[in-house]
């Protein structure tokens, strides 16, 4: 298979029944999806991987419902977000620190041990929506509109979540608390 195919061509081929094309889409987007799920769930890499498998299986079964094949990553993150919410609802989040963000903070040069714990604590205290918006908009560089579409949240809510989440992180790192 030609590896230079775009998402649209791969989606078309996958819809026509090509599992190879679908697996190419998986290889292209799985790392980003696992990263998004891990940072949104705040759990282990294994949990994010398990959920990502479910996301791709759902996507395989509902490929016909994808409206814009060029935005397959956004669609996958949307499915992942809904599944992550279900999973978070089914288990009570007892952890006051976010494991995924603690690892990220540990790998960040220039942060003191205190900063690292403060970041993990601040992320652990954010709502699910705030964490997902921060991951998509501040980490992945998506626009507010793209995140709004993927997460099925109003645009104003996304902007507010990003601003508040950013302010919370800045405060944890010793900055101003104003959003």
């Amino acid at each position, binding site marked *: 298979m030609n590896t230079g195919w775009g998402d649209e061509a791969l989606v078309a081929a996958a819809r026509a029944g090509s*599992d190879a094309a679908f*697996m190419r889409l998986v290889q292209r987007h*799985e790392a980003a999806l696992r990263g998004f799920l891990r*940072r949104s769930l705040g759990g282990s890499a294994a949990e994010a991987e398990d959920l990502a498998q479910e996301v791709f299986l759902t996507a395989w079964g509902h490929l016909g419902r994808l409206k814009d094949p060029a935005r397959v990553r956004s669609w996958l993150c949307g499915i992942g977000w809904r599944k992550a919410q279900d999973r978070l609802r089914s288990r009570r989040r007892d952890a006051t620190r976010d494991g995924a963000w603690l690892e990220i903070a540990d790998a*960040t*040069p220039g942060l003191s041990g205190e*900063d690292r714990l403060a970041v993990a604590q601040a992320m652990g205290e954010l709502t699910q929506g705030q964490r997902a918006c921060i*991951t998509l908009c501040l980490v992945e*560089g998506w626009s507010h509109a793209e995140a709004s579409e993927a997460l099925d949240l109003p645009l104003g809510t996304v902007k507010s979540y990003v601003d508040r989440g950013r302010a919370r992180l800045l405060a944890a790192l010793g*900055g101003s608390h104003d959003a």
Partner: protein
Amino acid sequence: MTPDQKLSALLTTAARPEPQGFAFSADLAQRIARRRAIYNILAMVPVMLAAAALLWTLDGLLKRQQALIDLISALAPGLLNLALVLFLTLGGRMLSKALDRR
């Protein structure tokens, strides 16, 4: 470092892509293949039921038509060969299509 710089460094680290999961892809491919096999079997159920009903009806009709049974008995060897040729041709085409898709 100012808090803004620390946050920038944190977000840059978080933006690093996760490593490619080859085991992940292999496991998923296996689950998709299993699911496709189940869907294919389920899709065949109505056809099998219709075929069973048709054969059951034909069986009832043929039992009452002795002349037709004699005719079919005479044609059976030739029809069997024809069915075998058709089966192999269609099977080969389907296999070739399936291989082309991969």
